[in-house]
């Protein structure tokens, strides 16, 4: 459905100098800064997939989405959406896609929501019967009837987001792009939106590409994730595989009785592993010793026995690495480069 081939985007901005003197200097200098926001990214997405496109702030997610929707032309490379290059045949492509940018709205700010839908109906050439059927479905999953006659500018964020999602879906697009669709929403509205996306995907086999900073969105919705960092693709695969590969770290925190003995504890040699395979961290205030290790290499009872051979333990806590932890580590360049 979507083919992205070696796509890159450079932003060229004139160099700015600080201060008033700098501003004057900037007028006469011709220096440019080139920022490669997206750097040679390729992937393919099949029909009916829900793909989470994630990365830290400024990683280049929105830029990629903009190129896939045809509103930004790539500096290098190309992409095809349902066989159409969105940059060359923007209008044709637009008929096939629905887009929600969480940060802004595609609805007409001053008009009642119902009017925006009427306009969209004409723009996308939706027949009366299809319109009625779609509206019924959208009203059911997004519950828009309560505010359907109000001007868009008076809607709350959550209401507006639901309305925007509805507007993006009115013409039954083949591909739905969602750039942070749950930003700033409360838990219940978030849930509603996720349910709606799921239902649309199942019912119409709509392909969904979604960027988000909400790990919940990913866990609930995506069967595949693509992680980018500084414009480069660093992971592409299923969520399960990501967890399997990077979620093998386990962390045990122990409250101990004899802090003075911490120095005497040589865990690596006791357990017969290398130093870097079990990292030990002692926190004085809470009197807690935490050990991080690979769950395939060391068993918890084994670890506890080793520690207890040196000192007494008051309390134990075991933590699995959560997805958010993994993502955090990927973002801080922890996992991929090591």
């Amino acid at each position, binding site marked *: 459905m979507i083919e992205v081939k070696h796509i890159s985007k450079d932003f060229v901005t004139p160099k700015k100098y600080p201060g008033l003197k700098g501003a004057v200097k900037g007028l006469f200098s011709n220096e440019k800064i080139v920022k490669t926001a997206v750097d040679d990214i390729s992937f393919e997405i099949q029909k009916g997939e829900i793909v989470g496109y994630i990365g830290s702030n400024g990683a280049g997610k929105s830029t990629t989405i903009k190129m896939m929707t045809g509103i930004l032309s790539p500096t290098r490379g190309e992409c095809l959406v349902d066989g159409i290059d969105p940059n060359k045949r*923007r209008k044709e492509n637009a008929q096939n896609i629905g887009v929600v940018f969480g940060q802004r709205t595609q609805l007409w700010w001053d008009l009642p929501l119902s009017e925006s839908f009427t306009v969209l109906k004409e723009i996308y050439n939706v027949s009366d019967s299809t319109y009625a059927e779609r509206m019924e479905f959208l009203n059911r999953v997004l519950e828009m009837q309560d505010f359907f006659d109000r001007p868009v500018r008076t809607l709350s964020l959550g209401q507006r987001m639901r309305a925007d999602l509805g507007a993006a879906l009115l013409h039954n697009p083949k591909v739905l792009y969602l750039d942070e669709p749950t930003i700033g929403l409360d838990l219940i509205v978030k849930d509603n939106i996720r349910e709606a996306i799921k239902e649309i995907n199942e019912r119409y086999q709509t392909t969904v590409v979604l960027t988000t900073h909400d790990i919940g969105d990913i866990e609930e919705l995506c069967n595949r994730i693509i992680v980018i960092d500084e414009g480069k693709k660093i992971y592409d695969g299923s969520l399960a595989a990501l967890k399997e590969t990077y979620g093998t770290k386990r962390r045990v925190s122990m409250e101990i009785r004899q802090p003075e003995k911490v120095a005497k504890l040589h865990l690596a040699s006791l357990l017969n592993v290398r130093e870097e395979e079990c990292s030990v961290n002692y926190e004085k205030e809470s009197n807690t010793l935490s050990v991080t290790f690979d769950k395939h290499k060391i068993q918890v009872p084994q670890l506890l026995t080793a520690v207890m051979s040196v000192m007494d333990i008051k309390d134990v806590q075991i933590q699995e690495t959560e997805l958010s932890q993994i993502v955090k580590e990927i973002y801080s360049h922890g996992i991929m480069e090591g």
Partner: protein
Amino acid sequence: MRKYVKIYLPFTLNALKRQMAYKGAFYLFILVSLFSSFISYYLWKAIYTSSDQATLGGLTQEEMVVYVFMVYVTSSIVMSSISNYVSEDVVKGTVAMNLIKPIDYRMSLIAMAAGNMIYRFLVPSVAIWIGLEIYKVTALGLRPVTAVEVLLYLLSSIMSFLIYVLFDFCFGMVAFFTTYIFGMMLAEEALLGFLTGQLIPISFFPSAVQRVFDFLPFSSMVYTPIMIYLGKYTGRTAGFMLFRQAAWVVILYVAGGLIWKRVTKRLVVLGG
């Protein structure tokens, strides 16, 4: 064609509704621009009184009065700016929201401008026009305007509208490169005041300058329809003037299309 109307008519209607929603600002606008019409009315009156010639620039004092107020009527119909929409769309990044839809951005802007034009025409302009016509016949003793002149005037004004809007679209494209065109919009307005004949009838300029103006689209924006209305252009001259306007519509349409193509290549959608 029907499809076009179906797609873009909602934009026109929306612009109309928006105008009604912001009535207050609109009345203020009417008041301010009428005020400047009166200033130029008194200015011209003083000029004519102090001059020993009866006609200046080919216009009698009475015709000048008509000219001044027809400038108001005509420019309020014709000068329905779209570059401010463009700059707003660029700065807020909402241009993206137009580009993700299967519509032509320029057509949607023109459709909105048409909505503004209709509103302005219906609300103040028609009333002022009728008032002026009555004043003209009763107080100034000029002949009433003929039906043909009115029709030609309206036809010419619609072309003027298209010329202005298409030109303003090209101008608005600057916004994509500077992302800040407020100052330039003020400059545009001031310049157009001169070049279109809003401030001074084109016939007041030296003939060499006038010849240059013949090759620019600006006099077609305001001056031409008013000259038609005043009965200064008749028969073949009127035909030629309308033809020239049509030519400008085509030229600016094509130019705007080309510029837009280039701009979309370099388009940077802000935010996100």
